């Protein structure tokens, strides 16, 4: 490949941001270019003579450098898997392989550029009117629009790279490292506050870094303030960091080199400066037309000559400084076009006159003259203009130039103020918005506050910093006065010139033109918010920072309102495009493991997520179905062991423990005797089943209850809440994570357990639903004789750090019987054979115990329990559904959970659990159905993928109806 193109820059200057000792090489649209370290992509390309950097979103018009400060939304690039890189602010990296997004074919020959020629047929809002008739065409339109729209294509297979997120806090956060921000940092720092000063570029100084002739004292000012800040240990400077969002209580989201920081500041100084605003005229979007500050950035920071021959269009004295900067950079300034009829008498104006630059006062740029198929400009027509943007004559004069530089005014960078709930008011004299009301703890300083002179900005920042420091420590705020500012009206009130042929762009992101705003007003969209929605002005990546003010001006004129009445659109985070990766951060998704997890891994478990828990679904190496059948058969014929450490495990202690549980659960506890356990069912206030488990009495004032795995946290929370409300003497101790638990089940389980404990576990010594505390395998255990899976079984609960040892001991002791671990799926099948419900699977958010067949667990005669009042209301009424079992002898088509039980056109219920029982040899299930359908033998219809299959209602439990096995 050929050597990269490398065009030399302007002579080195002390304040430049490029490192001429480090040359980099990158490619753009298949062509290699050279760059210096410190170059942005746009500055490097512009420095190499490349003028076509991107295409616009809608009309695919050629675009070049415009702002050089993160608003060049049409210069979006792709580098491998990284999309939407902003060329104006992203630094060149060696080896980058860049292509422009949003092109069809190539950037230079973009086939979608045809839309520009058809733009007359594609005004804003046409999509609202065009694509809904006829209805059948809409999907096609939608597909086409989706294909065309979007910037870049996401590669779903791209490697995930974590973007860190961090937390931080400070007394005073200062947003913006310009003169006012630095002054604020110094004032707050001297007052002893812990200050964080955030600057989104690579060095402090703000606009003074490229001020040139507009602020000749800038270098000295910056250096002295930087030196003093560096000496303050309590002031931390964060460069290349931008504050993207401001939320309540001064909680700010900042993006920097280390990812996102969530900063909590006691006080915030907003010293974010101002966005320079463009003029609007025909072809004001083409490469070569740029803001004055963009030209200054190119010339001063990157030492790139912005153009060869410039026409400077200005509406304030600042523009004269820009003209001088251009001349100093070797640009031939063809003329200065001052929109004002009366030009200023300041020093800059004098210097321009002295430099021999022609000044055309009371004139405007009526249109730019395109060159090279819109890929640049070759001149402009200058015409006389009124202050309201009306051309007095359109004949004017033609001026040859390859660049038009606009310096017509500013809009405050007040995004954070707006996000925090502050208000901006339009100040007629200054022709711009200024902060009016600020939320507590937020202070504005500098150009965002409408203060433009360098000395005035420093003074304003110092005052704001002093106030912020006082606020941070709760002191009375020192008085503040507005500094005397030498620049009275830095913005032209209407730098907008209509052209009968259009293509005068208000918003370059979305290709919104003057006529679009006017048409929107004619259609009745008379507020800034409505016009934004209708025209999409301000909805592009730069979020209206260089378009909203002009849009409001046009709307105000079109509707006869004041700009203040038209207002501005709502400021919402983020202030700059922020990647999903930055928002996602490291993606913390906690998962829980039981203390026996490593044993399951060793046994070949295939894990499943059960809420946050990782649980063995089944154990390999058998395939899923075979493994489940194998595990079920082991439990039915010999012994199996399952980890039930995920269950909620709670101690309820205190003198009122029994009374408390009587109120929390539907059953009785006061008569629960020591050494016994009992099923416990919990409802909410509406009588809906929310949880179940086992309860055991450990002592007169101490109970142990278990909850479902997914419900434990909520149940503990509810218990603590009710304990406080009722004022009972009760202590809730959550052992859920602190205890491991396992269930040993099967006809051989007694023999196995007997080898590990001295406890009398004979049928008479430890009967069904008994509870004991004893040492098992050298571990203090809580034992419950329960039968969830319908077999003789023991649930053993132990401190988590002993659970693995107990598991190992049980497995070893059960070797003669061939004990194996069984997983969640086998347990589900076993319990279904026994007709035991799982709360949350066989119940839903409306199920009462009366419908779920759990009325036996509800003691309505108690004085009170949660949900009792509701159940008393529904109890006399007939159930509308009931849970019942069913069997299927022909299971050619097998329903799934949630398939509907129907009767003709009526939906009667749904399947809640279904599986093929290896024990019974046919499909069994449970379903909600009409109560009259629950009679065993009734045939019900279940709708499966549009067809009906038949099942026969059967009595529960399907297996061991006399419960002999679990009670044995």
């Amino acid at each position, binding site marked *: 490949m050929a050597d990269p193109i490398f065009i030399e820059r302007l002579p080195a200057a002390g304040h430049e941001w490029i490192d001429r000792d480090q040359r980099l090489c990158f490619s753009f649209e298949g062509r290699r270019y050279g760059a210096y370290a410190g170059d942005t992509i746009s500055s490097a390309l512009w420095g190499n003579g490349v003028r076509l950097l991107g295409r616009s979103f809608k009309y695919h018009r050629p675009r070049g450098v415009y702002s050089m400060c993160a608003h060049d939304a049409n210069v979006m690039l792709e580098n491998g898997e990284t999309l939407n890189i902003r060329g104006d602010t992203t630094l060149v990296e060696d080896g980058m392989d860049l292509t422009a997004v949003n092109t069809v074919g190539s950037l230079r020959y973009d086939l979608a550029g045809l839309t520009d020629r058809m733009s007359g047929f594609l005004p804003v809002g046409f999509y609202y009117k065009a694509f809904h008739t006829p209805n059948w065409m809409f999907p096609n339109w939608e597909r086409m629009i989706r294909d065309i729209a979007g910037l870049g294509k996401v590669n779903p297979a791209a490697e995930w790279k974590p973007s860190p997120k961090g*937390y931080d*806090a400070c007394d005073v956060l200062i947003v913006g490292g310009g003169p006012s921000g630095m002054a604020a940092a110094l004032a707050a720092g001297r007052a002893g506050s812990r200050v964080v000063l955030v600057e989104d570029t690579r060095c402090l100084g703000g606009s003074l870094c490229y001020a040139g002739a507009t602020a000749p004292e800038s270098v000295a000012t910056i250096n002295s303030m930087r030196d003093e800040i560096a000496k303050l240990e309590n002031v931390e400077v964060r460069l290349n960091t931008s504050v993207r969002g401001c939320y309540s209580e001064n909680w700010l989201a900042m993006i920097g080199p280390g990812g996102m920081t969530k900063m909590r500041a006691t006080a915030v100084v907003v010293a974010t400066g101002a966005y320079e605003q463009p003029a609007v005229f025909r072809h004001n979007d083409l490469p070569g037309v740029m803001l004055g500050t963009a030209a200054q950035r190119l010339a001063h920071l990157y030492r790139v000559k912005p153009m060869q021959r410039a026409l400077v269009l200005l509406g304030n004295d600042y523009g004269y400084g820009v003209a001088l900067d251009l001349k100093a950079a070797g640009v031939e300034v063809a003329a200065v076009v001052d929109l004002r009829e009366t030009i200023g008498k300041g020093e800059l104006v004098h210097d321009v006159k002295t430099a021999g630059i022609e000044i055309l006062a009371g004139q405007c740029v009526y249109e730019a003259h395109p060159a090279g198929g819109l890929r640049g400009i070759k001149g402009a027509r200058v015409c006389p203009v009124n202050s309201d943007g009306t051309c007095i004559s359109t004949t004017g004069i033609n001026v040859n130039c390859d660049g038009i530089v606009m310096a017509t005014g500013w809009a405050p960078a007040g995004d954070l103020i707006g996000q925090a709930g502050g208000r901006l008011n339009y100040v007629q004299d200054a022709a711009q918005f200024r902060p009016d009301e600020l939320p507590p703890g937020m202070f504005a300083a500098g150009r965002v506050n409408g203060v433009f002179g360098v000395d005035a900005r420093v003074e304003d920042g110092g005052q704001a910093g002093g106030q912020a420091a006082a606020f941070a420590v709760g002191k009375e705020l020192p008085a503040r006065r507005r500094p005397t500012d030498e620049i009275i009206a830095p913005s032209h009130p209407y730098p907008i010139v209509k052209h009968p042929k259009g293509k005068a762009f208000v918003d370059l992101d979305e290709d919104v033109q003057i006529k679009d705003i006017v048409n929107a007003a004619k259609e009745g969209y008379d507020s800034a918010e409505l016009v934004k929605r209708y025209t999409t002005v301000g909805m592009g990546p730069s979020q209206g920072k260089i378009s909203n003010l002009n849009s409001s001006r046009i709307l105000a004129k079109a509707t006869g309102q004041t700009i203040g009445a038209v207002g501005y659109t709502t400021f919402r985070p983020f202030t700059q495009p922020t990647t999903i990766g930055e928002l996602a951060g490291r993606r913390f998704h906690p998962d829980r*493991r039981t203390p026996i997890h490593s044993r399951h891994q060793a046994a070949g478990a295939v894990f499943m997520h059960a809420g946050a828990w990782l649980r063995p679904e089944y154990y390999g190496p058998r395939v899923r179905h075979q493994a489940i059948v194998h595990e079920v058969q082991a439990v039915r014929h010999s012994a199996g062991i399952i980890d039930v450490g995920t269950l909620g495990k709670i101690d309820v202690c205190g003198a009122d423990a029994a009374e408390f549980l009587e109120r929390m659960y539907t059953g009785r506890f006061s008569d629960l005797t020591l050494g016994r356990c009992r099923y416990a069912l919990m409802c909410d206030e509406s009588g809906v089943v929310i949880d179940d488990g086992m309860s055991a009495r450990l002592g007169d004032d101490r109970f142990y209850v278990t909850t479902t795995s997914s419900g434990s946290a909520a149940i503990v929370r509810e218990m603590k809440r009710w304990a406080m409300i009722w004022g009972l*003497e009760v202590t809730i101790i959550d052992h859920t994570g*602190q205890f491991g638990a396992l269930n040993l089940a099967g006809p051989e389980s007694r023999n196995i357990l007997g080898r590990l404990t001295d406890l009398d576990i004979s049928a008479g010594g430890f009967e069904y639903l008994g509870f004991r505390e004893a040492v098992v*395998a050298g571990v203090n255990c809580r034992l419950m004789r329960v039968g969830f899976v319908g077999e003789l079984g023991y649930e053993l609960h132990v*401190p988590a*750090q002993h659970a693995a040892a107990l598991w190992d001991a049980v497995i070893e002791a059960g070797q003669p019987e061939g004990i194996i671990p069984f997983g969640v799926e086998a347990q589900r099948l076993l319990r279904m054979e026994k007709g035991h419900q799982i709360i949350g699977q066989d119940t839903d958010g409306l199920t009462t115990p009366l419908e779920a067949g759990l009325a036996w667990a509800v003691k309505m005669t108690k004085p009170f329990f949660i949900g009792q009042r509701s159940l008393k209301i529904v109890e006399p009424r007939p159930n509308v559904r009931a849970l019942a079992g069913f069997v299927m002898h022909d299971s050619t088509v097998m329903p799934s959970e949630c398939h509907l039980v129907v009767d003709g056109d009526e939906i009667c219920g749904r399947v809640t659990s279904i599986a093929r029982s290896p024990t019974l040899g046919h499909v069994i299930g449970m379903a909600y159905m009409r109560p009259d359908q629950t009679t065993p033998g009734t045939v019900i219809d279940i709708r499966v993928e549009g067809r009906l299959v038949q099942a026969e209602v059967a009595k529960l439990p399907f297996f061991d109806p006399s419960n002999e096995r679990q009670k044995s």
Partner: protein
Amino acid sequence: MSTTAFRTSPLHSELEQLSPTWTMVAGMQAASCLGDNEMHLLETVALCDLSFLPRLGLNGPGVTGWLQTQDIEVPAAMYELATLSDGSSVVRIGTNEVIIEGVPGAGTIDKLTAALATDVKDVFNVTRNEASLALAGPAAADVLAQTCSVLVRDLLEQALVYTRVAGVSAAVFQQELNGCNCVRLVFDPSYGIYMWRELLKIIAEYGGGAVGFACLFPESQ
């Protein structure tokens, strides 16, 4: 049968992969050393499993009074930590709730556990089998800041806070161990492996890694 089984750290399987030197402490195999590089890691940031430290939870209206009879003064303020004469720590986490954490060689917890064997009115023994980690080294604050909204500089001496670390509820406090400032994290053991892995990922970006407990408790060797 008597209680003879060993305790297992919730991080045992993770530590085992690091080929540790195991040392039995308070009935648990604890990783005392994970390699020769440990002192170097402590100069940046290191993660150490301290789940072997015995802990005793006490709950109930009689706790403070009963502990006084055992010559243990419970801090009056909530979440205040006090160090006992044998190096154990005691913290009040509720009006009637106290946690005591031992150190290798200390006898307080054994003594209290024995005393609790006889029924003590209004005092309930609460099993405390948490996972316990130490983040040690100068970059510990940065690692914590990436996972938790409570910053190290907000942690007062001799006090703990309950907060969320990497999405997990945890007690966080500062402790100096062997002259090294540590951020201690104590949390539900079921999150142990998750937390260990997440923290190690972040720590690795700082050039840190896992260490055994001996560099923080050298006298226990």
